[in-house]
């Protein structure tokens, strides 16, 4: 496996009235498993269906109904674990988390408290080229989602939509290794990228398919290092949990606000209470949802309807063998094999479809840097202008590679190439044929260029004298030649010949 080496980013420091403070952040990300059917019932997981149409007797918790594990959801969670380089527990078990709410028909959520399916793993969170944070993953467990309560449709009643009830979630729990709001957003982005590469979650935050509970605490510089050495949380401040965030921008704003709130409390001689808080984006503040004393007692206990989940190593090995190349490896390979900068490699591997497009271009064009420039600058720019997805790109990888090959072979100039790209983009067609048919090819025939140069020298004796005094004026002759050849002359050849003829 290829690896890039990284330096650790500096933690975010906030200056309080009295001291500097550092941030310590841990995340619990709920990722909806990409699957056709729910975790314990055969009902569909399709988003946007009529309310209460994707509901089985099991989801509605009718009397006598029993859960049966959907094997594909487990496979997806195992795949996710492997993608995060995590331990897979061959024996895990489901527990019931008991609480009352109308969108929780059973009165309990089936989850995994005591024996999660996936153990410790890690995510490399890229901050900028050469700088990344390694965030440890504590565990991933599989659980059911709740339904949706709707309180604003009727003045007297609340409505419940059970379509989401029982959909499989992966709760991905990190260690408190994230050290600032930007890192938190980058963590979510990287996790989302990996999940999308794996095909285990579509990462759609708007639909709530990826949402995070963010634990924030503050500490004085140096304390975090003591925690890392000992894993003793007493070196860190009391944490508050900000619930149910599904926007990267709001996550950053909430963390920033929450850290400053805690600093103010501590510097004012107060104590931060461990509690659950909600972020209000309208007011940009976090508010207490419930304190530790009011915290639910979930009365977790092993779910007696399900036997412990036993999976076989061979099955895990099969899943591992079918794992796609993941972002870190792909990026490292792009840097190594195609000579890309880490920045370009980052951009190109952000989405697996982009990376795939690029690879098709580069293997045909056989020039990494040129291919990267053209994909990132010309193609992405043009697609963005049209709000078009790469999967719907009017220019195929073969067409783009064709253009790049013409540039590489000096057959067309860079400027002409841009015109050619626009023609291919809007009209389609074979780039080489278009360049030929529309006379876009460069003149590389030195004889023809020499003739043109000779004619211009002969017609402009005064300019020749000036240029001999001041070689910088040779550029004027180059410009004249280009004009005379309709821009098709190879600029390098023109330069060389002009210089030679003028005796510079």
């Amino acid at each position, binding site marked *: 496996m290829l690896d890039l080496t990284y330096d650790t980013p500096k933690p975010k420091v906030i200056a309080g009235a009295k001291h500097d403070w550092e941030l310590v952040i841990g995340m619990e990300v709920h990722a909806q498993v990409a699957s056709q059917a729910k975790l314990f019932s055969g009902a569909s997981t399709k988003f946007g269906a009529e309310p209460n149409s994707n509901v089985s007797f099991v989801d509605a918790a009718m*009397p006598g109904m029993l859960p049966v594990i959907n094997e594909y959801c487990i496979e997806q969670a195992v795949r996710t674990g492997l993608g995060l380089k995590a331990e897979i527990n061959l024996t895990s078990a489901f527990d019931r988390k008991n609480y009352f709410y109308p969108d929780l*028909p059973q009165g309990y959520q089936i989850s995994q408290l005591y024996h999660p399916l996936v153990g410790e793993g890690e995510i490399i969170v890229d901050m900028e080229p050469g700088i990344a944070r390694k965030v440890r993953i504590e565990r991933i467990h599989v659980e059911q989602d709740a339904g949706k309560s709707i309180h604003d449709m009727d003045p007297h009643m609340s409505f419940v939509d059970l379509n989401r009830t029982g959909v499989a979630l992966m709760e991905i729990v990190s260690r408190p290794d994230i050290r600032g709001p930007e890192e938190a957003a980058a963590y979510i982005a990287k996790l989302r990228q990996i999940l999308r590469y794996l095909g285990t979650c579509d990462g759609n935050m708007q639909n709530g398919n990826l949402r995070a509970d963010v634990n924030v605490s503050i500490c004085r510089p140096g304390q975090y290092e003591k925690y890392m050495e000992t894993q003793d949380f007493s070196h860190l401040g009391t944490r508050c949990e900000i619930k149910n965030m599904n926007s990267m921008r709001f996550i950053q704003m909430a963390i920033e606000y929450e850290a400053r709130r805690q600093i103010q409390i501590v510097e004012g001689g107060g104590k931060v209470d461990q509690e659950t808080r909600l972020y209000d984006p309208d007011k940009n503040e976090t508010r207490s949802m419930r304190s530790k004393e009011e915290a639910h007692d979930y009365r977790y206990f092993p779910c007696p309807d399900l036997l412990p989940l036993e999976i076989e190593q061979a099955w895990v090995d099969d899943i591992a063998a079918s794992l796609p190349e993941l972002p870190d490896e792909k990026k490292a390979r792009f840097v190594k094999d195609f000579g890309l900068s880490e920045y370009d490699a980052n951009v190109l591997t952000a989405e697996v479809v982009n990376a795939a497009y690029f690879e098709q271009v580069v293997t045909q064009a056989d020039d990494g840097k040129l291919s990267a420039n053209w994909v990132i600058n010309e193609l992405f720019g043009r697609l963005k202008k049209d709000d078009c997805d790469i999967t719907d790109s009017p220019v195929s990888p073969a067409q783009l590679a064709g253009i790049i090959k013409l540039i590489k072979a000096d057959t067309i100039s860079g400027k002409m190439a841009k015109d050619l790209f626009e023609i291919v983009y809007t009209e389609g067609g074979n780039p080489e044929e278009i360049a030929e048919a529309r006379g876009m090819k460069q003149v590389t025939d030195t004889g023809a260029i020499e003739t043109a140069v000779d004619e211009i020298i002969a017609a402009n004796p005064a300019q020749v004298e000036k240029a001999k005094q001041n070689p910088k004026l040779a550029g004027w002759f180059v410009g004249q030649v280009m004009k005379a050849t309709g821009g098709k002359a190879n600029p390098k050849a023109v330069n060389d010949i002009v210089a030679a003829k003028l005796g510079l």
Partner: protein
Amino acid sequence: MMSDLTKLKISEARDALRKGDVTSVELTEACLDAIAGAKALNAFVHDTPEIAREMAKAADARIKAGDAPSLCGIPLGIKDLFCTKGVASQAASNILGGFKPEYESTVTTQMFNDGAVMLGKLNMDEFAMGSSNETSAYGNAVNPWRRGNDDAALTPGGSSGGSAAAVAADLCLGATGTDTGGSIRQPAAFTGITGIKPTYGRCSRWGIIAFASSLDQAGPMTKDVRDAAIMLQSMCGHDPKDSTSADLVVPDFEAMLTGDIRGKTIGIPKEYHMDGMPEEIEALWAEGRKMLQDAGAKIVDISLPHTKYALPAYYVIAPAEASSNLARYDGVRYGHRAKLGQGDGITEMYEKTRAEGFGPEVQRRIMIGTYVLSAGFYDAYYNRARKVRTLIKKDFEDVFAAGVDAILTPATPSAAFGLGEMKDADPVKMYLNDVFTVTVNLAGLPGIAIPTGLDKQGLPLGLQLIGRPWEEGDLLNTAYALEQSAGFVSKPAKWW
């Protein structure tokens, strides 16, 4: 037409049906008449005569066509805990008032596929929580047996008391029961019938309203061991809809009833001699021991050292699971919902609905279960009870490993008691009814109660045989041998 059709055993009725001596319609009508005449027993709480007649007609057609499984055309009663499609299924609780499921439990589906006829739904303790049928929202069923000439009403036991009363009074040929801590075996013993709780995982729990999921098992309640074998055959088998159901081949139980138990080893556990146990029960147990010995079995004294912890462990685990299982009855989607006052919110809706819908015993167990699972008490109660459960299971594994084939114990610590007699007693006294039966549920083993004698007052008494896991066939055969020796043929005198 044969006389006294309702008195037939399942095996007799099967043979008569196949020979054409009787039709299922005739059998069914006889049972429906008997049910109509036995309202005083309050055994059937939802009668389904139209469904019964339809099913009987269909069964007769099948029998005529020569396609007749053993249960084909046999009229049965179904415990109210089983969800039966389109038919009230309320677990004898007000909270499920008016609830008619859109689905049929796996166990009843299998029996109906075999041609069984459903006469109606049978009374029980609310959510199967009780040992006397007195927690039923329908009012208790009454035991057809009485003490001598005393007409005091006696309990049929619980929770499957309606099933027991119906079978004992010949209202149906057999009935389904469920057993979480003794709910098949105790009422069977109180009413002089046979009841088997199979190995946990033998019968699918899908569609049976849950009490304590790790303990609940369905089983037959019948007039003799052969009938139990026939009915169990139809009820059990692997069901992919129940993750705890065992994917094992089901042997032909009836074919295993040879009565030959020569060379079998029967264990007598010393811990089942309880202080204050009536002498008659001791005597009955000693008699059972002798009968099995005379039938050629080897009798050994054994020890199941953790027995005394079983009842407390059971009364932690079962309520814990129940407190969670019953959380779904919240008035939101089905069943009872309390009338709300101005300004009442969701919390008031839960509180009022559940206070109105659940009876006192169910509420007690929900509170116990909630308590033992709560933070700070979980380890002291629930976790400790789970450890005890493991030890109890190991007690049995050890004696089975030492060569014991079955264990003989009393089924109950007393004969049927009077209804209302325990009204003011400490609830724990009622829980003591389960003292001989809960170990079997905690260990997941098969257990069968069979009537072996009458007490001085003329009430039936039963013995329990406990078998190795998945060896119901062998257990039934041992029970069959004991049944042959005991020759119990008494019936309650009809007073209703």
